[in-house]
């Protein structure tokens, strides 16, 4: 049984399309990421879109500065990362906070639902706490049908109120990664 992987590769009706639709409707034209399997179909959609700049980072924190610089230049962006990357961003999150720059991140969760790798658990448990500790408004989507409205709400919260917002995408929905040879 490998339901998680099956979900991740089925693009025919996929909640990543709903996130992409929100990006388009709100003119989000720069997407940065340290890749995670859960985000891969969305990254692929963005890379096919000539109106969206996709920037592959070496560390998630650089996506915070990149996003703020893009906003200063008049462009909206979003940072995609796995929960383990949230820990890399903490001090950088001071930048959108003190400058009241809208900041949006979409976080695929690990270490919570059927996790196979114990190393993912500490940051998985810590992710909502450290985001809230940095005054980030945390939204969460546990089911596929709520992804679009949740990302839309979070993006509007960020861009309408000049604050930071994160959407945590539940591992229950994404599917736990299975390690298998071959």
């Amino acid at each position, binding site marked *: 049984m490998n339901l998680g992987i099956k979900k991740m590769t089925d693009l025919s009706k996929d909640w990543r399309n709903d996130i992409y639709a929100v990006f388009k409707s709100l003119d989000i034209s*720069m997407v940065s990421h340290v890749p995670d399997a859960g985000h891969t179909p969305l990254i692929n959609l963005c890379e096919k879109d000539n109106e969206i*700049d996709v*920037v*592959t*980072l*070496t*560390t998630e*924190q*650089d*996506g*915070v*500065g*990149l*996003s*703020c*610089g*893009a*906003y*200063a*230049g*008049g*462009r909206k*962006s979003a940072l995609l990362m796995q929960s383990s990357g949230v820990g890399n961003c903490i*001090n*950088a999150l*001071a*930048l959108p906070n*003190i*400058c*009241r*720059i809208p900041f949006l991140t979409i976080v695929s969760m690990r270490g919570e639902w059927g996790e196979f790798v114990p190393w993912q658990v500490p940051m998985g448990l810590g992710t909502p706490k450290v985001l809230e500790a940095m005054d980030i408004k945390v939204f969460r989507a546990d089911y596929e049908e709520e992804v679009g409205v949740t990302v839309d709400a979070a993006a509007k919260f960020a861009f309408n109120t*000049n604050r930071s917002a994160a959407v945590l995408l539940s591992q229950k929905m994404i599917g736990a990664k299975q390690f298998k040879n071959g």
Partner: protein
Amino acid sequence: MIDRRPFVQKILKDRKDNLRVVSGIGTSTWDIMSAGDNLGNFGFIGAMGQSIPFALGLAKAQPKLRVLLFTGDGDTLMSLGSLATIANHPVSNLTVIVLDNESYVETGSQPTATAGKTDLELVAKGSGISNSYTVNSEDDYDKIMNTVYNEEGPSLIVIKCQAKATPLVFPHSFDGAVSINRFMSSIKG
């Protein structure tokens, strides 16, 4: 070794309308502010390591402007990966000037890695920013100005500076929201 404060002032003297200037945490912000208040300046006073990705985002968003980042060796060393990001998502309008005094002057002049074996020009080149060079003399002023305004970037210039404390020259406001809104008014207008 160059005396950084007057040299930064010289680079920013009679600046062109298409130049926007960002500075990283520490002395770099006091340096650019010492050249005179300008709506087209945005200076970091915190968030160490974020000035390079910020400048990249700005340069990508405003391809018709020239973006010049002044920052220090300490700020750069915290964000070496961002040099690889710049190299692989290149912007032709970005120049990064590293004012390399080989020390954390603001905290008591502890030596940085560039006082030891690390060469930021080589790091930048190895990261893929081919137009990277080191300046040890003010004689290279014209070369620097050509890079800032004319050359196809991204470029990174390491300016070797004296490690000495310089007078604090504060920006218009310490409130980041005020600073970024002033800066953005120079772009929207």
